[in-house]
């Protein structure tokens, strides 16, 4: 690898190494119940996004930037609205499915505010939902269609389900968490991702003399490729 390619990739952090406040908000490794009482362990490895500008420019796939999946409003904990922000590493998997969904829908896919990653401290986070794993997206608009009718939501739900058996959608309806009436909700379930660059042999406490983070090397090529493609247009 050339030295001029030494641009760091996505920074991965073990949330147990974050400061007390961040750990208490992100709750890495904690078990959380879903609406049926089943328990799920919250993710531990996060991407650290230094600034809004970087989030805007950091593409996860050709058509989805990191910014779209970390966009929250004042319902997110104030500390988590500041930069750097943290998002579970599994968001990369979600982005790939979103890219497939976009191709199947044949139009741009717009994720709502609070519709990507929501921390367990977000005011909308009552039960364990895939949003807390970074593996769910609420799509409020596809192309020029604002998703607010049964017909539109059911149409795109069907398209999403046809993309992959891994995708779950919420049916049209008015009960929060059970169905949706102003967006298409799609999620992959409680998926966690451990980047290959990180070691898992660490205790669940900060360790002063151990590496606190890693950079994902494999992201560089993809990001360069997107830049090259963009520059051709």
């Amino acid at each position: 690898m050339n030295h001029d390619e030494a641009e760091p990739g996505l920074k991965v952090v073990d949330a147990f190494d974050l400061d007390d406040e961040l750990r208490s908000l992100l709750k890495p490794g904690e078990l959380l119940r879903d609406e049926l009482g089943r328990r799920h362990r919250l993710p531990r490895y996060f991407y650290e996004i230094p600034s809004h500008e970087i989030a805007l420019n950091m593409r996860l796939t050709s058509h989805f930037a990191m910014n779209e999946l970390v966009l929250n409003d004042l319902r997110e904990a104030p500390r988590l609205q500041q930069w750097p922000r943290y998002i579970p590493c599994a968001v990369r998997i979600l982005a790939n499915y979103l890219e497939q969904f976009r191709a199947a829908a044949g139009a741009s896919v717009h994720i709502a505010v609070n519709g990507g990653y929501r921390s367990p401290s977000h005011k909308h986070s009552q039960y364990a939902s895939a949003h807390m794993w970074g593996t769910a997206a609420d799509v409020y608009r596809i192309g020029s269609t604002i998703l607010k009718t049964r017909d539109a939501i059911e149409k795109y739900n069907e398209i999403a389900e046809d993309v992959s058996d891994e995708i779950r959608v919420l049916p049209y309806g008015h009960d929060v968490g059970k169905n949706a009436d102003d967006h298409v909700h799609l999620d992959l379930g409680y998926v966690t991702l451990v980047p290959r660059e990180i070691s898992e042999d660490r205790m669940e406490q900060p360790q002063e003399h151990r590496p606190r983070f890693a950079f994902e090397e494999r992201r560089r090529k993809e990001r360069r490729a997107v830049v090259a493609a963009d520059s051709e247009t």
Partner: protein
Amino acid sequence: MVAKAQRLPVPPPQDSVAASEVSLYRNLLKIKDEHALRDLGISFYDAETTVQWSYNADAWFHAASTMKLAVLLGVFREVDRGELALDAPVHVRNRFTSIVNQEAFMLDLGRDADPDVYGHLGKTLSVKELAYWMITKSSNLATNLLVDVIGIPTIQLALDELEIHGIKVLRGVEDQRAFAAGLNNEVTAHGLLKMLRLIAEGTAYSQEACDEMLDILLDQQYRSGIPAGLPKAARVAHKTGNISTVHHDAGIVYLEGRKPYVLVILTQFPAEQGRGTAVAEVSRDIFNTLAGVVYES
């Protein structure tokens, strides 16, 4: 058009106040008859002369959009306490839940006055932007979003803390379930007057917070109420309220060279009649009374 002076420079002599009051009272009854108003409530306080006058000012009226003044107050209570930042982003979403049974409802955006807000559906607007559109264009969507952020109990708490007893805010806008259950927002002229006085005098919250509220109120874009009865040079920080059978306006009137006066005019009329010009006429009469000037017809 103003025939004589546009200023209100000199407090009327003490012995003229009573005569002015009688004249004003007669004029208001005349307006009430001419417009076949079912009900009329008025209250004003003139900071220049310290004259306070009212008519039927403890009668309760459907608040219509004057309830948005209470929402504004609730928002700035939270801002003043450091609980809320004016630049905090709020997700613009047309989905709310009824206070009665938590059933979801959406606003009829075709009826909302402000495309500036629903043009941001799916995105964010700041608390300050929402407060601005809620007041200046009476945006129902902005109102419900802010009610969602701070909550009805906080709004009522803000009113209670300031001992404003003539305003009841029970729900957001277009909560039909709550409406059917008889839960409505109501105001009295005295209640709104007290709130506006506290804002005008900078005592509701910090001076900075009150100034922010006044700046928003001064940008009001609907001017068929109080401002329509005033000289063009008058600046009015106000909020209107209109539904099928009520037309209200509540505001602070700034005229050059004198302290402001606070005026609340609440009117209720028969549904078949439609909104008239009663509020503007009352506003003009009160201005004339305070100014001692006469309008050309």
